[in-house]
């Protein structure tokens, strides 16, 4: 018997509309065809992943292929989201790529000590993103199309 897997989606947690727009553009140009779900703050992200709040009833057995997590978020920040994910059985091994805006050592240290898998410096561009994905060993999960560079 063959198992046909539906390509899983990607959760992008980002409050800045420009950054969201540019990130999605970069992902698409990298050939990522997966559905991209956007959460605008930490609370929304947690609701989506745990099927609570506005996402009550969502099947939490199906989790995103990867979470792209900004750190500076309204209400619940990125590090708190990460901590919650790592302490919950359902999301303990969920790949999380942290989006940073600088080389602030504190951010990187906090992210890694709380169990992030990789990080990408914003703005998300193809090369960096591809690197991060390669580190995660899930190239096959995301890249459905050979990326075309340039116009």
């Amino acid at each position, binding site marked *: 018997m063959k198992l046909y897997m539906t390509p899983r989606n990607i959760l992008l947690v980002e409050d*800045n509309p*420009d*950054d969201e727009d*540019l990130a999605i*553009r970069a992902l698409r*140009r990298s050939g990522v065809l997966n559905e991209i779900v956007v959460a605008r703050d930490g609370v929304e992200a947690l609701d989506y992943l745990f099927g609570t709040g506005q996402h009550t009833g969502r099947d939490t057995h199906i989790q995103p292929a990867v979470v792209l997590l900004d750190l*500076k978020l309204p209400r619940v920040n990125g590090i708190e989201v990460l901590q919650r994910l790592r302490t919950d059985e359902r999301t303990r091994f969920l790949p999380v790529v942290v989006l940073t*805006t*600088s*080389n*602030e*050592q*504190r951010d990187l240290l906090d992210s890694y000590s709380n169990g992030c898998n990789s990080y990408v410096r*914003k*703005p998300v*561009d193809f090369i960096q993103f591809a690197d991060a994905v390669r580190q995660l060993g899930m190239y096959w999960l995301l890249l459905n199309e050979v990326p075309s560079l*340039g*116009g």
Partner: protein
Amino acid sequence: MDLQQLAKLRELCKDDAAFEHLKQVLAATLDSPFIAITQALAQTQQQLERQQALARVISRIRENLDLATIFQISTQEICQLLNVDRVAVYRFNPDWSGGFVAEYVVPGWLPLVGPDIHTIWEDTYLQETLGGRYRQQETFAVTNIYQAGLMDCHVALLEKFQAKAFAIVPIFVGQTLWGLLAAYQNSSFRQWELGEIELLVQLGEQFGVAIQQSELLARLQETQRLARIGNWDYDLSTQTLTWSDETYRLFGLDPTQVEPSYTEFLDRVHPDDRPALLDAIQQAIEAGIVYELDLRIIHTDTSIRHLAMKGQPFRNLAGQVTRLFGAMLDITERKQAEIAVQTLNQELSKSVVELTAVNRELEAFSYSVSHDLRAPLRSINGYSQALLEDCWDRLDEAGQRYLQRIRAATERMGELIDDVLILSRITRSDMTFQPVNLSELVQEILTELQAINPDRQVTCTIQANVIAWGDRTLLKVLLLNLLDNAWKFTSKQPLAQIEFGTTKDDNSKLLYFVRDDGTGFDMTYADKLFGAFQRLHSVQEFSGTGIGLATAQRIVHRHGGQIWGKSTIGQGATFFFTLEVK
């Protein structure tokens, strides 16, 4: 034999039988030996009385430490004892002149010493012979001043003193002839007995001892006053307490107004310090434990003095504590200094807390800057990129060039923000001090620079094993900035030289240096080198944000050192720095 003599003889016998026997013996002998015996008896009696009187005077001398009192009491006693008209104490000056300092004179005779009487004994003989016969411990007794072969001037002087006979003995203090003790007979000439002279000699010796003790006491008191040390002695059996003069002063009491007393002392002790003191005293008396404590004494003017007290119990042969004695030292200035240091420390801790708060705010600020300033920059950069990629064909060459310029500008601004953040991070980062091999760091950095620029021909000279004490991470950033500059400013040399090493300045202080043979800089602007965003070259000429040397300087300052540069345009530059972390 008269009745009085018989009564004396009876006293010498143990009972009547013995007396009868003595009487028979005496009756069997001639009269004359009997008289001789009675005379001898009388003499012995007199000697005994003299010895008793001497012992009395000596004990009076020992009871007192004040010389004036000793002289006053003793001269009167001696006068009565020897039945003379005047007893005087004469003191030599350093030049062997001298004068009477004390006397007792039988009323009716001319006084030589008094509140307004200072009799100078002008004796050129004593002056010229530095004390004359008395230096040899000799005594001088004259029965009749007119028949003793004295010089006329001497006789005239004695007449002025109303004297007809005299006996003089020296007073020695240690090995030094201090003065003379003189007894004068004014009413008549006098045949001095040997016993009388011996008595005077003994008294002269006692005076010497008393004077020596008094001088020692004066010196001790002076020392106590200067050192602000007082001592006390408490005899438990007699309940008598004695204080030195300085002890009175330390308690803020007047020796002429107050008698030493335990309650008088306790009243002065600060109430908070009393329990510990009482406890210590009790332990000392009961268990013979030495005590040492600091306490505050409140003076009548409400000022407070801090005293360090030490008490020592004294045990008798039976092991009982019979005496407590001790000393105290005024430590007010030390205590005040300690309090001042404490206050300073508290203020310092407060400043540190404030500084920590400021640092935390600064950190929050730079964190926020790094995020918030970057967000719009990212949008400008990202959308310029998107425009270039998505709408390339719809833009003409000028449009494309403008977009490229926008992107370059945002990238440069990104770099500036990064550098500012690095600078602020270096200011606030924690430091771990350890020995750091600077030579190895220099080698690493230059190897990296060479790897990035494989085409460059640079000869690197590195002094081996230069070890410094400091924070490894920060020292690496310091060297990176200096070497990066050296690398950058030698980029126009086809064959460049970069050197790292140490040297010593005129004061033998160790200096580290990074030297290159590059473009160099104008020493006129040397003071501007280390300011943030200060650049001595245009960006077109040499890239950079102008933050490297500011960063280097902060690192050096955080290591307690100094950094400076020396250069001549076109002849390279040398940067020196010191590290003073111990």
